[in-house]
């Protein structure tokens, strides 16, 4: 697990909002969804990516697959720079990188049979429809826990959990190396969510997969991840192995995020016991100056309003962007 399968350097995505108007005279604003993010995903690991809505975690996932084009920065996959690859070259790389979406209802074409949905990536990558494709699709169905008779059925005949299994089968049919799971279990009922989490872990072991597991549920992320990255308003604010991030988080936002998770037993109620952060997440259109968390941070200092903290590495493998940890310990 020492070679990075994916390496992002200074990755940014700015969306231009508004603007245009008559003769394009009105000036638009730029939404910095992802702002100078550098991140590594090691081969065979699961990197959890957490943060609240609008923090840019889904955008980052799509950037890594080049489903959207970065405004700045570079992406390397398996040691090879893929930032500038053309369409045809990128298609070849895409065999190795796939994505599973949150909404198992919206992500599957309702007019296609399960066989066509799962087999489509094979066809796109040059296979001919026929007995061989059908065999591969059937094997994949079995792998994800669906019976072969599902082949000729349509998405609406399945429950949410079963549909998510179909989505997983489609993502895995080309035997990729990297899977971006974008809130892949968030829409599922908890009893079904556990089945899918177990399935993802089994498949990872069996097929040697690397996961970027994007989610807002910190308990699920803790369970499935080896390392965890925390994002806030387009920036990665902390990265560490999961034990460290949950037991000794350094960034005040990470601490607040963990403190906000509801108790697992009524005897551990958090009301009045744990530190709460006040206020709402600021708009990404007009992010606060300096450290973006300073408007909600309980430990805010003058420097936080002026200068954005750099990502430092106070301990090997533990990186954090906070002025508190930048300062020499008194």
């Amino acid at each position, binding site marked *: 697990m020492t070679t990075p399968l994916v390496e992002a350097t200074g990755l940014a995505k700015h969306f231009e909002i508004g603007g245009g108007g008559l003769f394009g005279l009105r000036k638009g604003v730029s939404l910095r969804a992802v702002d100078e993010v550098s991140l590594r995903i090691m081969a065979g690991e699961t990197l959890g990516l957490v943060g*609240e*809505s609008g923090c840019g975690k889904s955008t980052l996932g799509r950037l890594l697959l080049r489903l959207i084009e970065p405004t700045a920065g570079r992406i390397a996959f398996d040691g090879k720079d893929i930032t500038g690859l053309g369409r045809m070259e990128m298609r070849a790389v895409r065999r190795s990188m796939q994505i599973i979406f949150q909404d198992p209802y919206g992500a599957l074409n309702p007019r296609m049979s399960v066989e066509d949905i799962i087999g489509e990536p094979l066809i796109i990558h040059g296979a001919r429809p026929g007995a061989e494709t059908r065999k591969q699709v059937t094997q994949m169905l079995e792998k994800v826990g669906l019976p072969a008779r599902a082949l000729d059925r349509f998405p609406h005949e399945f*429950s*949410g*959990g*079963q549909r998510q299994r179909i989505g997983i089968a489609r993502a895995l049919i080309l035997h990729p190396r990297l899977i971006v799971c974008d809130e892949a279990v968030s829409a599922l*009922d*908890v*009893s*079904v*969510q*556990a*089945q899918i*989490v*177990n399935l993802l*872990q089994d498949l990872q072991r069996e097929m040697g997969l690397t996961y970027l597991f994007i989610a*807002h549920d*910190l*308990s*699920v992320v*803790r*369970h*499935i991840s080896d390392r965890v990255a925390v994002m806030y308003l387009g920036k990665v604010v902390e990265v560490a192995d999961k034990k460290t991030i*949950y037991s000794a988080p350094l960034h005040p936002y990470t601490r*607040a*995020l*963990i*403190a*906000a*998770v*509801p*108790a*697992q*037993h*009524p*005897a*551990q*109620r*958090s*009301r*009045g016991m744990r530190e*709460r*952060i*006040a206020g*709402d*997440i600021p708009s990404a259109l007009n992010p606060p100056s300096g450290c973006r968390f300073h408007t909600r941070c309980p430990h805010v200092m003058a420097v936080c309003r002026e200068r954005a903290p750099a990502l430092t590495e106070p301990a090997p493998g533990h990186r954090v962007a906070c002025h508190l940890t930048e300062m020499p310990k008194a």
Partner: protein
Amino acid sequence: MNLLDVRGLTTAFMTGSGEVNAIEEVSFSIREGEILGIVGESGSGKSVTALTVMGLLPQPPARVAAGEVIFGGQNLTRMSDRQMRSIRGPGISMIFQEPMTSLNPVFSIGDQVMETIAAHERLSQSDLRKRAIDMLDKVGIPSAARRLDDYPHQMSGGQRQRVMIAMALACNPKLLIADEPTTALDVTIQAQILDLLMDLRDEFGMAIMIITHNMGVIAETADRVLVMYAGRVIEEAPVAGIFDRPLHPYTRGLLECVPSLVEDKPRLVAIPGTLPEPARRPPGCRFAPRCVHAQPACTAAIPSLELLEPTHTAACFRARELAPA
């Protein structure tokens, strides 16, 4: 004394393939100032239960097929729309999951809060405004006087939910029904809203029925818990009893299948199978096809809620024999 008594409530919906019971024989009560948590997954009937109590289901296709809802000595299921309007607001109030769609986008926050107050009280325009500011202040909207003229889109999801709570509290209800009030919110905002609900209960002494799929929300807020599965109540107990001694296999499963924030589990204990749709519920115990303890008797008849411990009921034929020592 009980504030609300629901007895044997069955609500049916007319569908293309005949009438289907969304909830069946649901019974529970809420005392004054108590927080009752109703927990269940999709299709468990928790929202239908709340909407039936509020009289908010369109009839047809919905129909209260059996049972009664007693609030303040009156049976709400027998009431006319007009009578129900006098209950909603000062009696029972409700907030919903989606604070964006629950607010009217073309009216200011102030107009909507004031409209709610004016519907139940005769006040001058300036008094209305004062009351609205006061309410928004209570629910923690910063600089409420200035936000009064804002429109819903100018507020964040958390603030919109605060506005909804302000409107729900405007008439000092005795019971607040909160249907998944934090499901659409981020976790830091969820913590704020749950704190707010608890603070308001302490301040105004109202009872709260909180409906959620999240056992964490139950652990944080509820005094007593009702667990629902496939349209039926399958367990009821004080909150500590549910977490310490769950007696129904489904409740145990619900608690076991969520990963922990502190403890390492090599593998999650999933509940096999899927939730049955209301029109395709299995015979006998609804949970039997997914239950590892199921026996032939479980599919032959529907188990009724039995008092197994002084304040703890469960609907399972094998609950006594499987109960932890």
